[in-house]
């Protein structure tokens, strides 16, 4: 869950002190289905990365390294676009993920 600011913490005068602070807001709890990355199938084509509406595909040193579940909204675009055979991204129900 995202931590909402209390009335004492909300900046005065509608100022925003930190550009891009939406990254601190977690949208991952919107998800009802979740992508699972199967690393051994991944061909590092970066299609999931370029098509993710939520910049939730994590990369490091030009490598895809996983999924940012704090922000992934579970739209499924990544799994749909994954060209690897067999696919390196699969959607599963959140209720089956064992994380709840």
């Amino acid at each position, binding site marked *: 869950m995202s931590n909402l600011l209390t009335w004492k913490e909300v900046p005065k005068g509608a100022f925003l002190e930190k550009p891009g602070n939406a990254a601190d807001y977690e949208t991952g709890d919107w998800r009802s289905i979740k992508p699972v990355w199967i690393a051994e199938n991944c061909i590092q084509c970066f299609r999931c990365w370029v098509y993710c*509406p939520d910049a939730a595909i994590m990369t490091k040193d030009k490598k895809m390294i996983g999924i940012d579940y704090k922000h992934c909204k579970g739209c499924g*675009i990544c799994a749909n676009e994954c060209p690897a055979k067999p696919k390196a991204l699969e959607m599963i129900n959140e209720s089956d993920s064992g994380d709840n």
Partner: protein
Amino acid sequence: MANLKQLSQQEEFFTPGHRMCAGCVAPVVVRQVSMAAGDTPVVIANATGCLEVASTIFPYTAWRAPWIHNAFENASATLSGVETAYRALKKQGKIDKKVKFIAFGGDGGTYDIGFQSLSGAMERGHDIVYICYDNGAYMNTGIQRSSATPQFADTTTSPAGSVIPGKIQWRKDLTAIMAAHNVPYVAQVAPSHFNDLITKVQKAIAVDGPAFINAMAPCPRGWRYDTREGIEMTRLAVETCYWPLYEVEDGQWKLTYKPREKKPLTEWIKKQGRFRHLFTDENKELLEQFQQRVDEEWEKLLRRCGEM
């Protein structure tokens, strides 16, 4: 040629944590524009719309770059002012950094409400890039038809039923209208074809003077399709020639992508609930009419691009 691995090392000006719907393609367009801009310092203006409201819910902002929102109708006028102020400061020697200016507006804020300010900014020749993310209706307020809505689409203000078969009129060809402004660069793009999109945005940014880019950005709520198919939606729109990819550089029309095989329009529209009523026996004729108009528009474009 966009090298995705290279691009992944840059910081983007649009962060996750924005509140656009799951599967919305508008943020994909914004991210790809950001990839194209790279390290170039940019100032962004936003017309009222989904993107504006969902990216700046207080006390958060998804923008890492300087960002301004004024009203629905005047993103271009606002950005014209910002760009003019920048030129004035530069002339006075108070700023020496090279800055570029990008406006984002939905089809409501671009085709309809912001049309006069956009036309004015283009005519005055401001050094701005205007990017329209076209989802084909007023999605933010609940799927009302706009002049970008495709003919026959079911919206809340063009409801398909016994009186009308969805929207009655053909959509406004805004990209061609912007080309008629004789600005240095105009292009139509789709995020499925990211290479094409990124290359065109880079051209638009590099150009000295106004540039306009029309990007298709499907809306799973308004178009009624499964969220996972957002990118497939723009790919099919391109492959069926409903949304051709082309550019107009200094008056020269050029097709930048020609489908190997032009797919039937039904392949695109059968996936969308907003066209569901077209697949009934009594509306068969409309479906043919729709395909015929797409064919005509495609041929018109081919002639303009010197392809036939």
